């Protein structure tokens, strides 16, 4: 039985695939050469015959090198994962040995994560969620401001709005809007319904037409023109409301 001293291990460094394969092939050729010499061939003949019987050395060497490089990569990955698993198992055992600490830590983490999740989902819904219009990052709200007297934002006067929309160069289009309530009458008792008043140019700013029907037309903004509404999709069932108020 041959001895099993890991010769390369002693030197501390693993040889690369190229050297390893070359050494293995050379060992084979030397063995074969010796066997042929024993069977009567002269040394140079023997070596040549050994190489001939081996076949295309470079091709086999390249094949083996490819296989080896792949194998080493796979082995390193496996060992890395095994290391991670081992660390996890050790951590789990340590935690189970100290149940008081573990329970406290878990509760604190749960509380902290829960609070964070709540806060950030609120933030996303209320503050960070984009408006459902194309290029919503380009939509902004403009207020009048009087910080000296303690009014950081307040509503814009009509005159200011007309001046700004006419003279400002930084904005593609502007629209003014105000919230109000209107009385909806028709079939059934009158209801107070939240409504928005808008100036001409809503569609230019939002970038989309209404889902059904058309948007406001310029003549409808003249004094004395018939009043028109766009029914919102939001809290009311738009179609039910339409059937209620329209003839």
């Amino acid at each position, binding site marked *: *039985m041959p001895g099993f001293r*890991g*010769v390369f291990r002693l030197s501390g460094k693993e040889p690369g695939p190229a050297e390893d394969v070359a050494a293995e092939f050379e060992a084979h050729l*030397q063995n074969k050469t010796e066997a042929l010499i024993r069977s009567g061939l002269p040394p140079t003949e023997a070596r040549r015959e050994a190489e001939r019987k081996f*076949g295309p050395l470079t091709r086999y060497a390249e094949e083996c090198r490819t296989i080896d490089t792949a194998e080493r990569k796979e082995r390193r990955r496996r060992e890395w994962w095994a290391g991670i698993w081992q660390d996890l198992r050790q951590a789990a055992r340590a935690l189970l040995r100290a149940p008081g600490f573990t329970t406290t830590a878990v509760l604190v983490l749960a509380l902290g994560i829960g609070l964070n999740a709540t806060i950030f989902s609120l933030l996303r819904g209320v503050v960070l969620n984009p408006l459902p219009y194309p290029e919503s990052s380009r939509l902004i709200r403009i207020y009048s401001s009087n910080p000296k007297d303690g009014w950081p934002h307040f509503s814009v006067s009509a005159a200011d709005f007309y001046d700004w929309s006419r003279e400002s160069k930084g904005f593609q289009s502007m629209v003014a809007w105000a919230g109000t309530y209107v009385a909806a009458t028709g079939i059934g008792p009158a209801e107070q319904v939240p409504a928005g008043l808008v100036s001409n140019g809503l569609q230019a700013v939002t970038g989309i037409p209404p889902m059904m029907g058309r948007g406001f037309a310029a003549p409808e903004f003249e004094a004395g023109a018939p009043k028109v509404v766009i029914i919102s999709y939001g809290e009311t069932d738009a179609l039910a409301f339409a059937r209620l108020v329209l003839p």
Partner: protein
Amino acid sequence: MTASLDLLQGTLGLLVLKALSWRPLHGYEVATWIGERSELEFLVEEGALYPALHRLERRGWVDAEWGLSENNRKAKYYRLTPRGRSQLRAEVTLWERYVSAVGKVLRTAER
């Protein structure tokens, strides 16, 4: 000189696993072992053995380790792993069924 048969890579792997089933061997020993037992029919190019060996190592069916041979020379020894041993059993069964099936067809054709 008998023409050497073209062995499928898979069959060569099976022969190597069998060769290693008694004790670890290095590449040259595997070549001589197969050569002796198959009585010259399987004189494939000796170099073809090495990709087969390296593939077996990659699949985890053999382990390879450098050691010293009897004549005190460095040699890379291949050893069958437990998984390799089960693989050998499975492949032998498969081979025997294959041989029996093909044999049946070939014998029928003679008539």
